[in-house]
């Protein structure tokens, strides 16, 4: 399934957060969205996922979601959003129950997604017993359980430490290579963007406009830490971000 954003603008109490953002996300592609904090990245993702309505413009789904897809646009949140009173399996079962999937059928799906996220041994664990990285893997397993057409990831690794982040990035790439999901990946971490994105959308400081759309020149499977092409791209992105951040600071001083 493809997504098309047409001239999205959004305001909160008179403050323009997003202005005239148009994008196209192809099926099987991961688009990373970066931009200085407060530029409207999370807002953009909520608009795409239908959790909020844009003031103007529209988000279009092109093509039908795949067979067996329970929830075409599925979020992975920065703070995991696991129900603390449900076990790992219970948290995944939560998103199946409303579709009438219970008992053996639910069990099969849960076992499958837990195996894919290497969590099979933690079926019955409660969220508080898990580390941050494991919690986020549970959240990813939950997202996979509904067989999404598009994954919407809002800084999914930002609450984690650097090592865990590396490991989870590998996990995500692994998952993508096995089943090419469409993804929109919001982050402020440029290293994540060049590792996980096919293309990178750079938003300007608030009001967020599409400043640049960059293609990552290395195929997903060949990306290694320290690859000079990725480093060069990351440096270029960093220059853009720095410019935006410094301009934002100046604007603040001018007020």
């Amino acid at each position, binding site marked *: 399934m493809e997504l098309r954003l047409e001239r999205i603008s959004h305001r909160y109490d008179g403050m323009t957060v997003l202005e005239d953002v148009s994008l196209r996300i192809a099926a099987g592609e991961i688009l990373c969205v970066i931009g200085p904090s407060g530029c409207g990245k999370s807002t953009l993702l909520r608009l795409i*996922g239908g*959790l909020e309505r844009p003031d103007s413009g529209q988000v279009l789904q092109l093509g039908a979601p795949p067979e067996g897809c*329970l*929830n075409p*646009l*599925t*979020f992975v*949140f920065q*703070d995991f*959003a696991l*129900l*603390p*009173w*449900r076990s790992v399996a219970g948290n995944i079962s*939560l*998103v199946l*129950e*409303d579709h009438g999937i219970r008992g053996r059928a639910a069990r099969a799906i849960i076992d499958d997604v837990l195996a894919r996220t290497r969590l099979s041994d933690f079926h019955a664990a*409660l969220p*508080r017993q898990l580390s941050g990285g494991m919690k986020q893997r549970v959240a990813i397993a*939950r997202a996979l359980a*509904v067989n999404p057409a598009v994954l919407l990831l809002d800084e999914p690794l930002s609450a984690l430490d650097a090592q865990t982040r590396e490991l989870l990035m590998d996990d995500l790439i692994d998952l993508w290579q096995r089943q090419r999901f469409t993804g929109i990946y919001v982050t402020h971490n440029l290293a994540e963007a060049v590792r996980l994105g096919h293309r990178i959308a750079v938003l300007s400081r608030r009001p967020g406009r599409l400043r640049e759309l960059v293609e990552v020149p290395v195929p997903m499977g060949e990306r290694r830490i320290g690859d000079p092409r990725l480093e060069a791209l990351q440096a270029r992105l960093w220059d853009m971000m720095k410019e935006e951040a410094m301009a934002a600071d100046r604007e603040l001083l001018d007020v």
Partner: protein
Amino acid sequence: MSEGRPVPFRGGGFRPVRIRWAGTAVFVLLVALTEWGTRAGWISNLTLPRPSDVVATLVQLWRSGLLWQHLLPSLARLAVGSMLGVSAGIAVGVMIGLFSLVRAGLVPLVAAIFPIPKIALLPLFVIWFGIDEGSKYALIALGTFTPTVVATYGAVDNVDRTLIRMGQSFGLRWFSIVRKIVLPGALPGILSGLRVSLAIGIILLVAAEMLGAEYGIGAYILEAGSLYDLERLFAGVVILSILGVLTSWAIGVLEHRLLHWRG
């Protein structure tokens, strides 16, 4: 160069630590002091009864069967009244938490009812519900209702919004979100509200029984008080305290079982 001072410790504190013996120790000390004082004479027996006499009174109450005659009706009143008040309170509190219109309509009303000393309404309840059990149920129900409402809608308001947004993002039905996310999330707040509500329930129970009941802890205390029988008065008070400790303990057990996920 082995000179140097250890870094002074300045952390710690500000966190409740479980100390089991302290509560009992304070209690035992107070009772022992009173016993000593009343025996030695520096506490006159018009000021305080001798603790051993109070115990003797309690034992006698137990032996004569009078204890149950007073306690059972009291427990029944407390159970029925607070069951009515608490369940209505939780229902209304959840509605206030979920629907803005209900909130706008009922929060001012609840705020108006909350500070009324419910005991003052007892004569009115006697007219409405009769002198018998009805008025007592109503008094306890109303008294437990308001704090439960306030605690419940506060608890619903405090449910983590990101969890609700998560539910919506997975396309959960409204009713599923309420049942599987909002209510469990509000449960800790509702249960701690229950502690307050039931304590108020016990206070009102005694008040209601003082105003017209043949049997009941309140009636027993009132009778003892009017005769200046301090031993029996205190025996009644001890029973109330035990009742309070027991309900608090029961809620503790409930919390332990329902909220084990908090660890």
